[in-house]
Structure formats: structure tokens, C-alpha cells
């Protein structure tokens, strides 16, 4: 399969179903691993990178990954294809922009993805829709067991899995959820959430992870401590204590808006819908921002004619590489803004 074909699919984990999916968009568990006997990425020659790529590609492809497994040679992929993979959260910005032999393995409806030669030799992750971290952990743990039968990981009994950056040492686990918190933002409580999360050693990031802003009230929350804790502990803490509490706060904030400021709420939702339904030029930032307000409206039953699945589809399809690959050509910013506006008008039209 070619990466460009992904453009017409909806990704399995970015769905409209799943526990608490009105607030928790997706769950993700990522593991960082390096091969024993090799240097870390900053000190590898292109030949060694190629050797690692071949080794890991084979080990991963021969594991049990479910349906539609395919490998992408990221180094030789077209710029638009790399961007498409990034927009679908299958590879990181860093991996898309990197240099030298590197690749990605994508499987089971985009719920599994592995990056080879990103910051570590291997970074693999499993996604699920809604709050479902236990499932992600079970699946990635099994895949990790399989790969470990075929390659030897760099491991130390004191420091655990050795990673290029000491912040990932130990378990190499990153447990994260993508949250949609528009009501906490509207009611002015988002700062509290961010401060509390940081105090609990959690990282709060934007839609595309490290170094990105929280646009459209989307926040990625993940653990920072990876050494001296068991994987199950991190997963359990996040899914039983941390996330449910935030979900409760966001729900309470939504209820407050409904009870006390219904006109403010409806105004925000309907204005967003109005602009989306009539704009002739719209940037990806603006559409993300407005779609976020409509998403809140859909979840609160204020916009019965629009479905959550439709909003999610628009989030994906209005991104620059998605637009260009569907159009079959490169487009400049103005052309993209026009095409984006047209797509949104068409999907959200009243009839």
C-alpha cells in the first residue's frame, strides 16, 4: 500500500466511538527501544542506520501486527507523503523532517505505527479511540515481546531500556491521551488544569506533541517519569486517577455553560458554524479553531444536524497535505484555503 492511499480512509482510532470520546479523543502508548551493539542515532553513520533499518524492518514485519501492514521508506518518500503521515499522527514532525535511512511500519488501521531511526532506533506506538490505555498497553507489550525475540535491545539492570535521551530511560514508556477541553478554556479554568498536570509530573502539549501549541483547545497529556515505575502503574494512574478527573472537570464546566451561559455557548457554536458554512477562504488554523467549537456543540446536542464522525473527518481532511494529495497536485496557500473552504461548505451544508 502507498501512503497516499491513506488519504481516503478514516483512521481507526480517530473515531466517534470509545469510552469518554466526547472529551478523550484518543489514547496512545509508546515505547522507546534501541538495539544493543550499536551507537545511538546522533553518532551513527548512514551505513549503520541502514543496517538498523533493515534489521528492525524485518523484525517488525514478521511480528503479529494484524491486517494491512506496510512499510514506508521515509527517506525516499515524497515531501507531501511524509507530511500526510505526520498529519495522521503516524510519524513525528522530527521523523518527517529528518535525514538519512529511516522508515515507518504502519498496521491495523493505523492503530499501530513504528518509527525506525527517529530519536531512538525504534519508537513504536499503539493508538485507541477514547480512553482505552490498558488496551494500548496490552497490544504494544505483546508486539514488543515478539520483536524482542528477534533482536537484542540495549538494556541495563539499573537504568532499564537505554535511550538516547535520559528522559526516556527505564521503561521507555510514554502514556498519553489527546483531550478536547473547550469548556475549561471558556470558563477560564484551563490554567488550573495545566498547573495541576505539571505538578503531577505530566507534560501538557499541543495537537502534534513536542513543541506544538494547543490550538483549538486540544491538549496532549503524557507521563514524564519513565524510570523507577512499572508500566502498568503508569497506565493505571493515568486511566484511573488522572484522566477521569479531568473528564469530570470538563463535564462540570460544560454543564455550567449550559446552565448559566447558554447564549454565550450557542453564540460561539453557531458563529463558528456560520463562518465554516459561508467562508470562501479559510486557513487550517482558523478551521481547526472553529471546528473545535462545533465539536463542543455536537457533543452537547446543540447541532443535531452534524455528526461527530463528520467533524473528525473534517479535522483530518482539511490539513494541507490531505488537501493536496486529494487534489492530485501541489497547491499554494491561497489555493489550499479556497479548496478547504469549499470542502467544509460542502460537508456542513444544511441539505
Amino acid at each position, binding site marked *: 500500500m502507498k501512503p497516499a492511499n491513506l488519504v481516503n480512509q478514516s483512521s481507526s482510532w480517530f473515531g466517534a466511538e470509545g469510552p469518554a470520546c466526547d472529551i478523550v479523543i484518543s489514547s496512545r502508548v509508546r515505547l522507546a527501544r534501541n538495539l544493543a551493539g550499536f551507537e545511538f542515532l546522533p553518532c551513527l553513520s548512514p551505513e549503520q542506520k541502514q543496517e538498523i533499518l533493515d534489521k528492525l524492518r524485518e523484525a517488525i514485519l514478521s511480528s503479529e501486527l494484524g491486517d494491512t501492514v506496510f512499510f514506508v521508506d521515509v527517506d525516499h518518500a515524497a515531501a507531501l507523503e511524509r507530511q500526510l503521515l505526520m498529519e495522521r499522527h503516524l510519524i513525528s514532525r522530527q521523523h518527517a523532517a529528518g535525514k538519512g535511512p529511516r522508515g515507518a511500519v504502519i498496521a491495523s488501521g493505523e492503530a499501530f505505527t513504528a518509527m525506525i531511526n527517529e530519536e531512538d532506533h525504534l519508537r513504536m506506538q499503539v493508538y485507541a479511540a477514547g480512553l482505552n490505555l490498558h488496551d494500548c498497553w496490552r497490544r504494544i507489550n505483546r508486539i514488543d515481546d515478539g520483536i524482542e525475540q528477534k533482536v537484542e535491545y540495549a*538494556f541495563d*539492570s*539499573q537504568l532499564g531500556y537505554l535511550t538516547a535521551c535520559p*528522559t526516556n530511560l527505564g521503561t521507555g514508556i510514554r502514556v498519553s491521551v489527546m483531550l478536547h477541553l473547550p469548556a475549561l478554556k471558556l470558563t477560564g479554568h484551563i490554567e488550573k488544569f495545566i498547573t495541576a498536570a505539571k505538578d503531577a509530573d505530566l507534560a501538557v502539549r499541543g495537537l502534534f506533541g513536542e513543541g506544538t501549541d494547543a490550538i483549538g483547545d486540544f491538549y496532549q497529556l503524557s507521563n514524564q517519569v519513565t*524510570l*523507577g515505575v*512499572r508500566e502498568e502503574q503508569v497506565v493505571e494512574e493515568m486511566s484511573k486517577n488522572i484522566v477521569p478527573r479531568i473528564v469530570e472537570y470538563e463535564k462540570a464546566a460544560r454543564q455550567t455553560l449550559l446552565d448559566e451561559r447558554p447564549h454565550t455557548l450557542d453564540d460561539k457554536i453557531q458563529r463558528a458554524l456560520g463562518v465554516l458554512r459561508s467562508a470562501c477562504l479559510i486557513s487550517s488554523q482558523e478551521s481547526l479553531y472553529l471546528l473545535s467549537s462545533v465539536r463542543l456543540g455536537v457533543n452537547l446536542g446543540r447541532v443535531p444536524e452534524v455528526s461527530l464522525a463528520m467533524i473528525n473527518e473534517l479535522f483530518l481532511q482539511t490539513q494541507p497535505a490531505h488537501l493536496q494529495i486529494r487534489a492530485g497536485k501541489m497547491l499554494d496557500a491561497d489555493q489550499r484555503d479556497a479548496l478547504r473552504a469549499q470542502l467544509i461548505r460542502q460537508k456542513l451544508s444544511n441539505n
Partner: protein
Amino acid sequence: MLCQICKENTATIHLTEIDQGQRTETHLCQQCAQKQGLAVQSQIPLNELLSNLLAAAKSVSEAQAPGSAFSQPDVPCPQCGMTLRRFSETSLLGCPEDYRLFQNELMPLIERSHAGHSQHCGKVPSRTDQRQKNEVELLQLRRQLEQAVKAEDYETAARLRDQIQQLQ
């Protein structure tokens, strides 16, 4: 409580200043506090931490005789060529051996980034030799034992104690 400066966001930073017996309280939101240069950065970037440590190490090693415990920032790892200076710029190490070579400089950083922890207690690859596996398992069991004793669950504690003895 609203921020005293912008009067929009909720105040999350509360300052109490006592100057010549006069007590003043200030309540600010994160953004305004940052603008005032007051916000505490709870997560200091790793490379910043290391640069500070390197500076401290330098002054220590200058004061001491040569051969002190701290590595020089420009001495490369014989395996991969990584230096502490380069690490302080990128936060990335060059090879597994660096963890041993730069242990004195890295351990404080590692503990800072992992809530004071310095010992792995999670998954162990099945290929790892039995001795290493036992080490990690022993550690986990000892922690559980501690918790069981704290919770006065002596039945579990006794079982854990037997397991520990078996492994040793």
C-alpha cells in the same frame, strides 16, 4: 479568584511578600506571572540543567587536583566520540556506554527527570540473563513488601519475604 493584572484568568500563582513587617499578597494567572518574570518553571529543560551542572563541575574540578570525579566537558567518549558539551546542546547521548562514562554528571539529571528514581523496576527483556532479571524482580518485591508492611498486611508480607529469600 481572578488574576489581579488581567482580571480575566483564574489566579493560580499566589505570592506573599513580607517587606519591613508589611505583608502583601499578590494573586496572578500563569501568563501574567510569566510576564512579570515570576512564574516558576516546574519543568526545566534537560540541557539547561546540564549546562548548570557542567558549570558547577568545572568550578569543582578547577578547585581540586586533576583526576577529580567529574569529566571535562570536551573529553570524548572513546566509543562514540560524544562529549558532555555536545550532550548539553542536544540532550542526546551517543551510545549506551556514555551512561557509564558520564555517570557522575548524568545521575543527578536522571534523578531530577524521574522524580528522584534511579533504579529501573519495569519490564525486563526475556533475553536478559537470569541474574539481571532477578535484580529487577528483587527490587519490585522489596517495594511491595514495604507497602504490605505499611498496610499491616502481614500475610502478603510473609509471602513476599519468602519469595525474596528464594531469589537471593
